[in-house]
Structures are given as C-alpha cells and as structure tokens.
C-alpha cells in the first residue's frame, strides 16, 4: 500500500510532526511519499519522494489551494492512505481532501490494533475502533501518539508541483498569543483550576493551595475562556507547556489538549469527584473528592 503523508510548515519552518507521520506509515507497512507546501530550504530528512509546492506561490495557509494540490498528487500516486497530523492545519484540510477523494476520514487516530485505527470518544473516556468502507482512507493522527522514527540524513527526492488555483480564503498573517505575566514553564510546582471549581470565587481556593505549596497556579481552558483566570496561565495545546516537579489538577477532566501541556510533569495529583475522569490515566495520585471541601483542608494542613 502507498501512503501520502502531508507535512506542514508553520511560520516558514518545517514542523517535526512529519516524523510522526512517517513512523505511523512504517507501522502500517506502507510505502510513503511526502507532500509539502514549503521551500527547498527546509526539507525533512526522508528516504523517498517529496511532492513540493512552492510556499511563496501557494501560501502557508490556503486550504482550498492545498487541497487541489493534494488531489493532483493523489491522482498520480493512487495512495491507499492519506495521512495528516490532527493539528489546526490537518483537521482543517483533511475533510476537504477526503471529500475530494470520496474517501472515509478517520480523525485523531491514537493507535492501530490489527490494522484497525483506534480513536478517542468523549475526550478520551472511551476508544473506538473504526473501519473504513472505502478503499482509500484519510486519517489524522493525534499529536504524540506515534513515536518519531530515526531521522535519515538523506534528502528526499523532490518532485515539484503547482496549481493556478488561487482560492477564496485569504490569510493575512499571524497574531502572537498574549505574552507577559507568569512563565509557568519554569515553575516547579503548579496547581491548576479546572471547570470543576464551579465559580470564579473559587479560584482563590486554588491560588491559596499554590501559595501554601510555594508554587504557581494555572488553569484549564474553560476557566480561561470564562475569564476567571488570565490566558497566560492556561495549560495545554493552546496555552503553555509545563514540566513541574508537582502538578495538581483540581476539577480538571484530563482532555487530551490539557494533557498535552502537562504530561511531562514529574508527579501528578488529581482532585476530582469523578473516579473515571481521564486525568486518572496519568495521575500518580487521584484524590476522589469535592475540591471545595478537600482543597481548603489540605491548604490548612500544609500551612501548619
């Protein structure tokens, strides 16, 4: 089987996630080719063909044009598998390509069991094995689910491609995330508030525990979206990545996007009323309790 792997550029740089796609294709026993809208200057190490469209002409984010380019390559290559990262680029582009190829799309693959892809359900509470009914399959891979292979020092065989399509969506550049305030990435102890805190007044409970432990406080996304805590304290894929010695997750369910930001913590304590919350999967200690009762007691004992 042939696989077409879709690499990504962000802000002029090649993203390392391409190596996860390569690792996945190897696991599937596929013969891979790469697709990239990029420039000749930053190419992945790869032993095979790379279909390269010029980024200056086709744009870094231009989904209608990138779709057209991929469809063109697929027509030539006749792959059995087209693989994207489940990233802001990949989840945007994959359904367009799947539609164009009349193929099933299997989103956010986390594992493969006997050749059948497995995807999460309900933010990781369950998993689902999915079979495509179409011969050609489009897949997106959860970040970090498949390891990086050894990166070959060889340069790929470049096959230039292009299209005259210009697309209806215009991209006017990036806006940086708000900076300033705390740098959680350096904190040794972080206590984070999740939606389970229930109301903004309860941020204080979390802040007090952080203080008693001599650490910083952070938050999950809903708490930031509700403006109970400022964005620079958000932990996760669209916030900060942290690696403290101790991470205490209070009323946080453990969605993959949150875990991605804190799973490199050395020791994780979760405080949650739900014994089955996915955060339990990675917690060293899960305290099954109402944080509103438990955390103040813990803080008081620590202060003594």
């Amino acid at each position, binding site marked *: 089987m042939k696989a077409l792997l879709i690499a990504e550029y962000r802000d002029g740089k090649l993203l390392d996630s391409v190596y996860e796609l390569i690792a996945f294709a190897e696991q599937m026993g596929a013969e891979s080719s790469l697709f990239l809208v990029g420039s000749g200057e930053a190419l992945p190490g790869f032993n095979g063909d790379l279909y390269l469209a010029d980024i200056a002409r086709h744009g870094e984010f231009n989904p209608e044009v990138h779709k057209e380019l991929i469809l063109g390559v697929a027509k030539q290559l006749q792959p059995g598998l087209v693989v994207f990262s489940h*990233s802001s680029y990949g989840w*945007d582009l994959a*359904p367009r390509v799947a539609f164009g190829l009349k193929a099933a799309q299997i989103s956010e693959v986390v594992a493969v069991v006997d050749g059948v892809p497995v995807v999460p359900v309900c933010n990781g509470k369950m998993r689902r094995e999915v079979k495509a009914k179409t011969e050609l399959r489009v897949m997106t891979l959860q970040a970090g689910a498949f390891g990086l292979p050894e990166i070959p020092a060889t340069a790929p065989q470049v096959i230039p491609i292009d299209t005259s399509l210009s697309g209806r969506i215009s*991209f006017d550049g990036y806006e940086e995330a708000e900076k300033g305030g705390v740098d959680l990435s350096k904190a040794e102890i972080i206590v984070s508030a999740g939606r389970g805190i229930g109301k903004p007044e309860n941020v204080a409970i979390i802040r007090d525990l952080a203080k008693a432990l001599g650490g910083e406080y952070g938050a999950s996304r809903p708490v930031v979206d509700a403006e109970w805590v400022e964005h620079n304290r958000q932990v996760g894929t*669209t916030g900060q990545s942290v690696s403290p*010695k101790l991470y205490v997750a209070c009323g946080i369910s453990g969605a993959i996007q949150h875990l991605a930001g804190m799973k490199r913590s050395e020791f994780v304590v979760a405080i949650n009323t739900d014994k089955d919350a996915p955060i339990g999967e990675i*917690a060293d*200690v899960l305290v099954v309790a109402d944080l509103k009762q438990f955390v103040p007691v*813990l803080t008081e004992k620590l202060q003594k």
Partner: protein
Amino acid sequence: MNILVCVKQVPDMESKFKINAAGTWYDITDLAWRMNEYDEYAVEQAVRLKEQLGDADLTVISIGPAKVTETIKKALAMGCDRGVHIVDEAVAGREPYEIASAIAAFAAGKEFAVIFTGMQSQDRGSAQVGVLLGEMLSLPSVTTIVDFAYADGTAVVKRELEGGIKARIKVAVPALFTCQLGLNTVRYPTLPNIMKAKKKELLAVPMAELLSVEPRQETVKISFPEKKGSGLILEGDPAELADKLIRILKDKTGVLA
C-alpha cells in the same frame, strides 16, 4: 440575509458511561443531554450576527430523536428565529459524512449566506461535519475561529493555532465557519425568551427524506481504555485524605520539606 447554525445534542461528559449491547457505541439510556459546547458558541455568534444585521433570518438545525427538540428550543430561546428538527432515531451510529450530507440536502437552494457549526462534537470529536458541509455546498469554510467580525459582505475572523497563536483570515460570504471554545461569551436564555421560543416555528423533517448516501465508515468496537495507571486512588474523609496526600508528597516528591 439567511443564516444557519448547526447544533448537536451530546451527553454531559461527566456522565457514567456504559457500552451498548452491540459494543459499538455508548449506551444512550440514562444520560443527561445538553447542547454540544462548541455549538453554543456557534449559536451565540449567529445570534450576534443577526442582531447586528437587523433583517436576517436565523435557522437552527439539529439531527436526532425527539429529545433533540430541547436543544433546538434552547437555541430558539437564545435568539434563533426558526428550528429544523431532522428526525432520526439512529443518529448515534451516523458518521460525519452522513450527517453533513443530510444537512446539505436541507440547506441546498435556501441561500444561507453564513453557516456556523461547532468545530467538533464533544462525544465523537471528528471535526469533520462543518468542513464537509462547506464542501458539499461549495462554500469556503474557515475552521476553529476564536474571533468573528462581519461587514459589507466580508467576514474577518481569527483561527486559533497551537500555542494560542492566531491566524487572521478574510473571506467573502457565502461562507461557513466552525467555532472554537471561547469565541464569545454565551448568553443564558431569559425566561421571557424561553416563553417566546415556544411559539417559534419548529419544522420536523424525517431523516429518510434527506439522507441519500451510504456511510463511509463504521465503528467496529467501543471500549474503555485499560487502566494502565500505576496511580493510587484515594477516597474517604477529607482530613484523612489530606494527611495521606501530604505523606505521599513528602515520600515521593522533593517539593515538601
């Protein structure tokens, strides 16, 4: 201007889930249901656009069994003008391609200038229906938006990328947008608006009238992840739990003196 917003009813994610008899989905009995979180932002943005424009007609559509009318009614109480219920007892087993096809069949020819959906559902999480719908209706679509402004036929939006970076995007309508968490602040329906919503049009259309495609994928098995965690679970009285936890932190981490 005609505006469409697509919503899904999902279980509360804190529910105790069980697996159904066929082993292919979660058991849908005994669950509390609500509007998909991402779709709440979509409804709010659609209502704001309608309020900005004045003369707009806003339709909310949802697919599912009778109980999804509750979710449609919530959207009506938030400010949508009319509801469309695509009646489908088998919705739990439908895959994104089927769902998008049915909505596209309904929307075809109705000249919706702006369509909003959530970026994904909380249960399936495929992030496909919005984009597929755009493709089927030949509309440009912009995903994962966290900011939306509209003037003179053009939408200026921001899409959210990894690390909280945003991409500025411009697109002329008709167009479709999939909404990310935090796009806006979602209003609570007021009691008078809940009463008013009861009188709004709610059209029922059988799924069979709209669905003309075969599924492209199927779930062969659903399961709970194996508890691989060597993690300790502590339960009991808060004071005792706190003592236990402090002892563990002293033994296992270097952070408590």
